[in-house]
């Protein structure tokens, strides 16, 4: 996946000279996860800019660059390091189009490596998607496959709206053949990764492989689980989600961030409001605990795994 992201940045920079990267360590080093590897060498230090270490300054500078017609792609090195830039993000990036009645749009992509499962110490494993998804004016996108990593990042950079591009850190090393010419579903469309008649697991980003594994394991119990990958939290694909839930009748939402006030709560509410009479069981959530991200030696207790997902599926009142 890391190479797919790198290829997306390279191809977008080749296609559009207004695309500029900036962030801490993105130049000479190629980023701590090597996502920008080789880009400074190909496009020069101006288009792949090593900035001072200051996230508000990085994003604020990107805003000014976007105001002057550039298409900045910002790297926030880790999820929790993006918080100093929250004021720039919430007060300006998200609102500039609205504040100026459409006269000034900010086509900025903010890449945020997020989530746990890689043994990072504190402040390196947060799942911050609810903060972003709760901010009108931002698109919030997260790929779970190699193909989406490439296709969604290119689409995000090409978007005239600001996009928070959440990169699941623990999928950086996931492997699959990348076909750069393959068609990728657009931003805002959920994709059914696996069909099934018993229940649907609704998920995104780092939890997708866990859900696919759980669906495979569920066959032993006689359950045929569908797996729906949201891909985009904003815009949210009500249509696909509701279609799948109505046809299956049972739903479990899975994400690794905390559950209280999380994205799963929003999805559960929407599904209940729109599909109540099609539901054979309450909509359940399987999420991380409502705790600050734990130390790495305990993180496996926090992250939703196959067993916890199967336990939830088992609670879905199977008698018709």
């Amino acid at each position: 996946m890391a190479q797919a992201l790198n290829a997306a940045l390279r191809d977008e920079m080749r296609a559009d000279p207004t695309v500029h990267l900036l962030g801490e360590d993105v130049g000479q080093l190629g980023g701590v996860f090597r996502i920008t590897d080789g880009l400074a060498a190909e496009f020069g230090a101006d288009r792949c800019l090593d900035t001072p270490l200051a996230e508000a300054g990085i994003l604020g500078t990107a805003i000014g660059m976007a105001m002057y017609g550039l298409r900045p792609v910002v790297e926030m090195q880790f999820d929790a390091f993006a918080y100093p830039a929250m004021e720039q993000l919430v007060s300006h990036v998200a609102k500039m189009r609205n504040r100026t009645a459409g006269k000034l749009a900010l086509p900025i992509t903010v890449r945020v490596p997020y989530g746990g499962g890689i043994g990072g110490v504190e402040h390196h494993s947060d799942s911050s998607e609810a903060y972003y998804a709760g901010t009108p004016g931002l698109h919030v996108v997260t790929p779970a496959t190699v193909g989406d990593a490439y296709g969604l990042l290119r689409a995000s950079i090409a978007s005239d709206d600001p996009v928070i591009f959440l990169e699941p850190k623990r999928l950086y090393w996931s492997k699959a053949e990348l076909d750069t010419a393959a068609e990728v579903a657009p931003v805002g469309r959920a994709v059914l990764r696996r069909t099934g008649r018993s229940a649907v697991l609704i998920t995104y980003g780092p939890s997708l492989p866990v859900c696919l594994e759980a669906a495979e394991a569920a066959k032993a119990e006689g359950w045929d689980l569908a797996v729906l990958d949201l891909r985009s939290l904003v815009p949210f694909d009500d249509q696909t989600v509701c279609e799948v839930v109505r046809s299956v009748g049972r739903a479990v939402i899975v994400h690794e961030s905390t559950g209280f006030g999380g994205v799963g709560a929003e999805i559960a509410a929407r599904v209940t409001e729109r599909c109540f009479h099609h539901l054979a069981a309450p909509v359940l959530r399987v999420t991380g605990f409502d705790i600050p991200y734990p130390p790495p030696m305990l993180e496996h207790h926090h992250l939703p795994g196959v067993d916890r997902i199967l336990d939830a599926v088992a609670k879905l009142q199977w008698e018709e």
Partner: protein
Amino acid sequence: MTVLDHRPTMPVPGWLPGATGPRTDPAPLLPDDSPVRVLGTTGLDKYDPDLLRELYRRLVVGRRYNQQATTLTKQGRLAVYPSSTGQEACEVAAAMVLQEQDWLFPSYRDTLAVVGRGVDPLQALTLLRGNAHTGYDPRATRTAPLCTPLATQAPHAVGLAHAARLRGESVVALAMLGDGGTSEGDFHEALNFAAVLNAPVVFLVQNNGYAISVPLTKQSAAPSLAHKAVGYGMPGRLVDGNDVVAVHEVLAEAMERARSGGGPTLVEALTYRLEAHTNADDATRYRQSEEVTAWQEHDPVLLMERQLKALGLLDEAAVSSASEQAEALAARMRAEFHAEPQLDPASLFAHVYAEPTTQLREQAEQLAAELAAEGDR
């Protein structure tokens, strides 16, 4: 043997790994000991009398604009107005030193500078009136929206100036801030980025003595706000912010320096807010009337008028002409603000995204239905 004897020798010559030259000598970056003044000095001789009269005219019209806007708040016609009465010299000079292609990044108190850029005086007030956030097209006059969060517009100015320079275009960005804003992290990050990128930016800090009620002594322990520039590697300038010619001169020098590739400058203008922070504030709770009276003697409009009259550069006709223009603007503001604005509720959903999301379309339909039902009643 002392501990210092064990201090290791720096393995790399110079002061920093990778440094090729000597460390910047801070002395040339330091501000003058006293603020730059031009009014009352021979420095005024080199000024074009027409420019001086134009500065005066803008001061007079600007003062009247501030007065009328303040009155409109008392009548409930404006939601709030942070007046720049007493600070008009900074506002006027800031707009005057910008060339057409340059960009202004104003704070919420800088409506006059925005008007000076050519924004319609009434459109500049939509934010403060409460009927829209930004009533003008920022691209049309290269004027960013009035910024309410403190100092967050400063890094925008840096990024825009940096982008323009990458494109080889002669654009300078001017960011306006207050003294309180210099305590914010974004101010420091912007200065640091500007200096590192050598961006063509000028930062103008209007030090009007108070951040709402907190005086400068509780805001900063620095010898002056201009001194803060030195730590970032850019020059700091200190100017009498009530001397419109001096502010014009210092800003014009900083703009020229930026335009010619010399990098950013921090300018601190010493001025005074003669009125409260906004109409919602009671300034008598935190400052003495003697202090205000003393600054009234140093009023920027009076200083300029006295000086020009003494030099024979301002006749009664010019004075009454400026006064008439000011009254005409005030009359237009009264007329416009007594009419109820026509607002379109559908605009709430129009500019959140390039394309509204499904959720926003549904909510727009809901509001339209509510409005239709109200119409039926």
